[in-house]
């Protein structure tokens, strides 16, 4: 007697389970979105304040702090430094990362695997420790921290992004295409330029975008390797907040959010960023 009833009962219970699970996931997602967006929204709203303090909600709205950015020489210099560092970091990371991933994808040697792990390690190792270590390293070499060293250190932590996206693109690349190119008489360089690069280009571009962003808002490495002259934007903003609660930092943050959004939309359009990262 109990046998025919059992499936119905169980089905009933599963329905409840599924419903509550779905509710739970929806709640968690909403919470996650809230936590991700809320800080940015608060900063942007605050940046439009008319008052002289970082108060939320703002008592009145104005653009005075954005206007004030025009006179913020130090902040502008820091932003220019950050852009320069991010540009060179991206250029070098893309070049080295692409070259490394080509070798890694092509070889099955255990040494190459080891190199892969080594190149990826900055992603998991504490960047603070790496920043400190590189500062000691630079001094031991007899130098003082400067822009080239800052760029080099950024390259170390940004290469993994290029490596991952390019390797992912390379695994999608049909090796028969490379064989076809070779058998048609193409040199390795021609094969790379005409076949490999166009087909993995989006992966490389996605990695370049990530590397750029990672360099642009890197704090732990810059903290050690940036000095007065090479001060970068995130560090400068941090110091402004710490010393005098400068409202201009909110305006600068607003601009950074806008800048990032524009870059992301561009990356999505031209490189299909989210598809490359999947």
């Amino acid at each position, binding site marked *: 007697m109990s046998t025919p009833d059992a499936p119905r009962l169980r089905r009933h219970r599963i329905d409840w389970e599924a419903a509550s699970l779905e509710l739970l996931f929806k709640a968690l997602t909403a919470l996650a979105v809230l936590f991700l967006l809320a800080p940015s929204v608060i900063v942007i709203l605050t940046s439009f304040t008319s008052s002289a303090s970082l108060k939320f909600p703002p008592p009145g709205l104005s653009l005075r702090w954005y206007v004030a950015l025009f006179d913020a020489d130090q902040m502008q210099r820091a932003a220019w430094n950050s852009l320069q560092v991010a540009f060179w970091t991206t250029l070098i990371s893309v070049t080295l990362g692409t070259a490394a991933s080509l070798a890694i994808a092509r070889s099955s040697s255990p040494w190459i695997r080891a190199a892969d792990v080594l190149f990826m390690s900055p992603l998991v190792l504490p960047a603070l420790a790496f920043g400190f270590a590189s500062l000691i390293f630079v001094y031991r070499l007899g130098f003082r921290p400067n822009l080239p060293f800052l760029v080099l250190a950024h390259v170390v932590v940004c290469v993994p992004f290029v490596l991952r996206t390019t390797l992912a693109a390379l695994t999608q690349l*049909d090796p*028969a*295409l490379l*064989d*076809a*190119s*070779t*058998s*048609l*008489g*193409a*040199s390795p360089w*021609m094969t790379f330029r*005409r*076949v490999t690069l*166009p*087909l993995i280009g989006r992966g490389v571009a996605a990695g370049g975008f990530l590397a750029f962003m990672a360099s642009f808002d890197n704090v732990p490495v810059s903290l050690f390797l940036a000095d007065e002259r090479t001060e970068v934007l995130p560090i400068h903003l941090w110091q402004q907040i710490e010393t005098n609660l400068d409202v201009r930092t909110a305006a600068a943050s607003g601009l950074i959010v806008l800048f990032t959004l524009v870059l992301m939309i561009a990356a999505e359009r031209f490189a299909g960023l989210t598809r490359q990262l999947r």
Partner: protein
Amino acid sequence: MDGNAAPSRTAALRQLSQAAHRGHDLRLEQITHRFGDGIAVNGVDLHVTGGELVALLGPSGCGKSTLLRIIAGFISQTAGRVLFDGALVDHLKANRRGVGIVFQNYALFPHMTVAENVAYGLQAHHWPKERIAPRVAEMLDLVHMNAFAERRPSQLSGGQQQRIALARCLAIDPKILLLDEPFGALDKNLRLDMQIEVKRLQRIAGITTLLVTHDQEEALSMADRIAVMNKGRIEQVAAPTAIYDQPASLFVNQFVGTTNVFAGEVIEISAHYVRVRLDGGAVITALPGSAFSVGARIIVTIRPHHLRLAPSTGSDGMPGVVKTVLPLGPEVVYDVETAGGRGVKVVVARDADLAPVEIGQSVHLVPLALHSFRIFAA
């Protein structure tokens, strides 16, 4: 050759048949290739004369693809020599060998148009710009694909992609053409059309061709000669009919066409025949082939077409009971269970006037001729 001439099929054909006179000769000498502990190709000798189409036929993992990659120059063999026209090519990199390959998935460059795909090899060979466009048009004309020059490969059907792959490959006038399972991805009707088309182009071009395939029908229908490969070795090289009718080994016999296999023991040998007792108990008479002594354990095979069903009154042949009858249009396929429970396939032409033998009927299986049986060492 006038590169500026209006592209026409006749021009392309004329040029290709001029190439026919220099069909290149391919020779493999004692090619051996090891991967770690495994041996993929084991002492292969093969000579393909100019303009000939030879099929490398074998199951997957038999080493045929490795052999193809060695000829193309993608991998270097562990031992042995590859010669084109008697000249060693082992030192030549893959992009300098002049070997054209049509890949199983065609390997067309997805980010280029059809015309760009065909032009690619010409650019790689540093053809002057003004000669490339006419040559591309010529090649597309040859494979009846002019109308598709500006399409992307993804917009083409499988058969069309294959035509482009072939045009791209022939454009650079390769010495040797390698076809790597080229028809595997096509549906059955199209496959036959493309086989005819490829064979036509190969004939016109007179280009020495190696067709790598695991499909026996493909090999039988297309090749001038077939080299059957198994476990890294070539078991037999012969014309398709010889491969089918006089298989040199049990493997060839079983791999090419279907066959019934029996184990047995030689019980009598004379100058004209050999008598074998099959493990089921039946005694059969065959022609003496290789040297076997009385008492030797052997394998006897016979193709389903070489058996007929006789009423179970005579004592000749193998007794059995019909288990399955499949009338397949012009033929009827019978599955007959013989002594010892072994199922034997028999295919006979269907006689419209005679009703097929029915299921459950006792019959005797009789060979059409003594030479229908083939005997191999067990």
